[in-house]
């Protein structure tokens, strides 16, 4: 990870920008029921344990190259991204094969409610964070 960041530093012109954007595993994802009034959370989705470890390694690598004065943070933030599904079964199948998420929803809606709405539209809402890092003059 740090090797990749050193390479990025090398190929960036002085003052150039690195955009680091990735899913924010510090924030729970949500399974949402799409209704006429909007989106209602029916459960939460956690990031898989292995991916949490990878994300922490990425965070440490970014921290290190800032400490090495190769990059400095210009701006950071977070946005939400929704992935749509035709029904509950499609959402669950997506999760079963997903590499980042745990493979099941931790439901907050009861079984009867889920049965009643299972053919409606759903989304998974996840947080994505980003940081703009300026290449500064430090040598790798």
């Amino acid at each position, binding site marked *: *990870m740090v*090797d*990749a*960041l050193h*390479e*990025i530093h*090398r*190929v*960036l*012109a*002085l003052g*150039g*920008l*690195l*955009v*680091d*954007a*990735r*899913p924010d595993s510090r924030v729970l994802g949500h399974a949402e029921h799409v209704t006429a009034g909007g989106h209602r959370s029916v459960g939460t989705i956690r990031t898989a344990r292995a991916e949490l470890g990878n994300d922490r390694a*990425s965070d440490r*690598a*970014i921290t290190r190259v800032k400490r090495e004065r190769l990059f400095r943070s210009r*701006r950071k*933030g977070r*946005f939400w*991204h929704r*992935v*749509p*599904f*035709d029904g509950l079964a*499609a*959402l669950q*199948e*997506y999760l079963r*094969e*997903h*590499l980042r998420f745990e493979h099941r929803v931790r439901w907050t809606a009861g079984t009867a409610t889920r049965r009643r709405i299972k053919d409606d539209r759903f989304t998974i809402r996840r947080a*994505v964070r*980003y940081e*703009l890092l300026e290449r500064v003059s430090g040598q790798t």
Partner: protein
Amino acid sequence: MSSTASDVGKHVPALASSLRPSAQDELAVWGGPRLVRGKRVLDLGCGDGRLALGVAALARTVDGLDPDPEGIAAARKRARDEGVGNARFEVGAAQSLPYKDGAFDVVISSWTL
């Protein structure tokens, strides 16, 4: 985005860009078109070219790099199909970038690090 997960079939990481935010949505959050306008841009982990081709109309040049040959083949095909002339795609790894020092003004690492 109109497609749903069932439209695009199983989750295949390099080709799952239809389940990601659009390039325009991400660019708007990061700072808008001025971030890449007239710039030399590298999209690291470009997959099938979702972001690279999404910003190509604004950028001076766009290079995409990904370790997955299948993703790069898809990106090249999309570039041809869309008539994008300022984008190039190569198979490679972020740990050993096949570019000269200072070759880019912007490097995008979206869902990659």
